[in-house]
């Protein structure tokens, strides 16, 4: 018999970290060996409630535990947010294609995130950390709704100390004590941030943010093949059978979730 691709693997919640009022990070210890590459996603299942697709937010090189940072958005994630250390979840995956990080060697990497999009980008940045000697530089531009909606605040301070790494943040609405930028993330994408002709942009965030960031990157002179987008679709099976995540001829679950703009630019309103 073929292996059952719908079988969830038991994973215990080892720790729950509250990142923001709406985002929690769940540290999971899978009962069977599981690993992923940055960009791939997994199906996280709440027993009896259902599964949701998430890209892990932890360092892909650390496999004993896998972390997911989850925003409370629907019924399953609301239940997940009530769960505590010691409870169990189901895991399937990893699915999809990872970021081709080796192709980024010798280039500037322009990382643009919005909201909970920082979760997959954390895994991406932690993967890049192992490649710092091969990269020209990393420029991170990140936007959140308010200062309290920024995840990983203490870790971000550590990332700023990495070699050739620069991080700029913005919020849609400021708050007392916030000294950073106020405005949408597109307002902090400045000409000259990176050497456009020798750069890749890696974008992750809500669909509407990705749409406008892509437009801005194209205006800045980025080629479609150098813009890597992590597409958010309603993946159910994860293996290209259920058709839910259809994007033109692609299935986001197996052909993505990372696509270049070149791949999807002819699909009407791919967001």
């Amino acid at each position, binding site marked *: *018999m*073929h*292996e*059952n*691709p*719908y*079988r*969830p693997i*038991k994973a215990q919640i080892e720790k729950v970290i509250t990142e923001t009022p709406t985002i929690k990070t769940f540290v999971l210890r899978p009962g069977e060996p599981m690993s992923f590459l940055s960009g791939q996603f997994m199906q996280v*299942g*709440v*027993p*009896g*409630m*259902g*599964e*949701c697709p998430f890209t892990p937010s932890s360092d892909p090189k650390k496999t004993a535990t896998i972390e997911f940072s989850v*925003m409370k*958005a*629907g019924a399953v*994630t609301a239940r997940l947010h009530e769960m505590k250390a010691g409870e*169990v979840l*189901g895991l399937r995956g990893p699915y999809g294609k990872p970021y081709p990080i080796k192709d980024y060697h010798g280039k500037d990497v322009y990382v643009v995130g919005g909201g909970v999009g920082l979760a997959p980008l954390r895994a991406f940045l932690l993967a890049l950390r192992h490649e710092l000697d091969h990269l020209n530089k990393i420029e991170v531009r990140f936007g959140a709704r308010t200062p309290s909606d920024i995840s990983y605040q203490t870790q971000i301070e550590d990332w700023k100390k990495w070699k050739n790494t620069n991080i700029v943040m913005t919020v849609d609405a400021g708050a007392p004590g916030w000294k950073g930028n106020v405005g949408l993330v597109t307002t902090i994408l400045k000409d000259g941030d990176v050497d456009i002709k020798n750069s890749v942009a890696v974008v992750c965030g*809500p*669909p*509407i943010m990705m749409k406008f960031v892509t437009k801005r990157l194209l205006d800045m002179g980025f080629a479609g093949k150098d813009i890597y987008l992590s597409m*958010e*679709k*309603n993946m*159910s*099976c994860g*293996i*290209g*059978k*259920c*058709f*839910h*995540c*259809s*994007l*033109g*001829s692609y*299935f986001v679950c*197996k052909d993505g979730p990372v696509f270049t703009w070149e791949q999807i630019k*002819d699909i*009407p*309103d*791919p*967001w």
Partner: protein
Amino acid sequence: MTEHHISSANFGRFLEKLLDVSRLIAPVEEFGKPHFKEISARDIPDVRLAGYRTVESLKTYFYPLIEKVSRYFGEDESARGEGFIILGARGCDLEGLEVLDKVFSEGDFQDPFYVANRDKVTVISADCTDCADTCFCTLVKGQPYPVKLFDLNLSPQKDGYVVEVGTPKGQALIDSNKGLFSKVPKAFLDDKENNRRRLGDLLMEKNRDFKTRLDLSETHKRNLENTAWKQLTKDCVECSNCNYICPTCSCFLLLDQEADKQSERYKVWDACLKSGYAKVAGGANPRGELFMRLQNRYHCKFDYSFDRLGRFTCVGCGRCCLDGCAGRIDMRRVFVELEKKVPLTAKLK
């Protein structure tokens, strides 16, 4: 290609023999139309192999409406599959089966539940001898007789059938019932070809008003961004019957629920016409409007299907046209209107 003949009297005996060793699903007329039904020996006289495809498609027998596929931990569901014989599948049914095979049995992952069901089924197909008003297999590169995936195929004659062997499994059925079959007279083979030609002509005549100049795939590619879709799909009411009745629509959702204090996982048919089908947790919906969803269904069958599976995934059975559609949309009418609306400046992919 090996062919045999079986008389009508012997055919009844053949079905009795088959019922001794297997469950048998066959087309039986109910309310004036053919329906697939599991039959017993007393139903044999009611089996109708003349005519055209059944009201419902074959997919339910390989891919049930709801199927338990796993559970949260503990002993896993095993894919056993149920063995049975399907009698009277048509050319379009088998084209549909080929699509399901490509979706579920090919690629990096296989669906073990479909594969188990599929492996245990024997297919005895049959040529059409008539067509429904909505049949259009010949518009989508099909034909009113089976050319693939059958173990045995039956071509109806005045007395009995010409039986073509498709697989060793089919040959074994002949071998174990040798006395019932005889050599085919040449005239019967001519009758078989004549019937096939006659049906082809009949389909051409019935679909005369729906013939298009462009290949359907090209028509769809050229209209990808055409606002005409809003008008073409205005009668759709989102009932999704087209999805459910289609032999190749295979979308499903993995549904988790509590049962007997255990969390179980089911694979349940889903429908791309439903508003929440592609909606993501944050609330964004890539196909928020109904016309976008119906357009996507057409592209799925006539455009994207080539990149994904190398073929049309509409088999022209016509089940979703008129009778099968609450809005009485005729897919063939959409093809014609779409071709008229091909923008001269439309870019080809």
